[in-house]
């Protein structure tokens, strides 16, 4: 039953996605790829869509995967699944366990989870870069340099770093997405 599956998988994503925004990317990527809901390309495309539309990535992803798999109801159920754990947890904290964060056990647990989330984001970024820029997905795949993609990557990085260093100007994610779209149209 696709509705139940969507609900349970997104419930799991909602319950363990610490770190907000990009913190969820590794788990969402793993789930949608494992269940064949999206391909690697579709997943990356959708991150771009999600960055250029309002709303949290996890909610956007749930709505998108749910509705592309099982229509409007599917979207609704997946979104409900991803929101429910945080709703319940925050609700409990706000109503009874006001000082939850002051317990040293919770603090200790978070001190382990925080670096773990950072490592997961970086590892996901690297594996995505390997597969998209060098075409390496497993140890057996033949590396094939995608020079165009590599050039686009370097151009964006250069522009971002230079603007920050020289003009103290931080490019917004939307600006980066729009300019990489232009570069894509020029190069491909």
């Amino acid at each position, binding site marked *: 039953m696709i509705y139940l599956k969507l609900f349970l998988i997104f419930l799991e994503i909602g319950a363990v996605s610490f770190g907000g925004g990009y913190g969820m990317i590794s788990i969402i990527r793993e789930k949608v790829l494992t269940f064949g809901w999206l391909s690697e390309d579709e997943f990356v495309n959708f991150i771009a869509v999600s960055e250029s539309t309002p709303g949290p990535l996890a909610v956007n992803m749930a709505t998108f995967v749910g509705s592309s798999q099982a229509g409007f109801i599917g979207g609704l159920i997946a979104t409900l699944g991803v929101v429910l754990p945080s709703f319940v947890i925050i609700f409990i904290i706000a109503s009874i366990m006001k000082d939850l964060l002051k317990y040293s056990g919770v603090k200790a647990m978070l001190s382990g989870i925080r670096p773990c989330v950072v490592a997961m984001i970086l*590892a996901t970024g690297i594996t995505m870069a390997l597969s998209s820029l060098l075409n390496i997905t497993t140890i057996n795949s033949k590396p094939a340099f995608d020079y165009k993609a590599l050039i686009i990557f370097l151009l964006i990085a250069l522009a971002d770093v230079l603007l920050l260093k020289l003009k103290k100007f931080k490019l917004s994610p939307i600006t980066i997405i729009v300019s990489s779209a232009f570069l894509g149209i020029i190069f491909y």
Partner: protein
Amino acid sequence: MKNDNSNIRTLFLTFLKIGVFTFGGGYAMIALLETEFCVRKNWLDKKEFLDMTAISESTPGPTAVNSATYIGYKIGGVLGAIAATVGVCIPSFFIIYIISLFFDKFLSLKVVYAGFRGIQVGVIYLILTAGLRMLKALDNTLLDKIIILGVFIMMILFTLFSVKFSSVFYIIISGAVGIAVYLIKTLRKRSTIK
């Protein structure tokens, strides 16, 4: 104080508005929330707001949803929490639902496809820089370093050798390591005092 119903309606409408304007994820929204609830409406004081931020960042789930539930509950109880959470989700739900209807057709256009090929590179850049930014924000203790190196290397190796290992386990194990290190430290402290 106005009556409850109008409070809940205000909560719903305010979070609906916030849901429309939360481009760029959690941090952009924190600024919006602060103007809306601390400055304009005066519903939360500065300290409560900081507590809320800390809680929504250290619990699972998107910051936007977490803070909506928290603020909603503080101001309007159970109904307030539901109204605020539903409100903040509605705009993105409908926008993404509409996009999902024609996304495949849209991508079959050649120009759009080329554009998205470029965008994929941009997204990878965004993910890597977000990771690096969060890396800098850590205190960089020995525990941080060990967990980062361990998880990072394991995840990349498992991907390359196509070993199935759910990311959920990394989180559970790291949380357990955090607690274990804390317990060892407290035990040691106790024994030195004796």
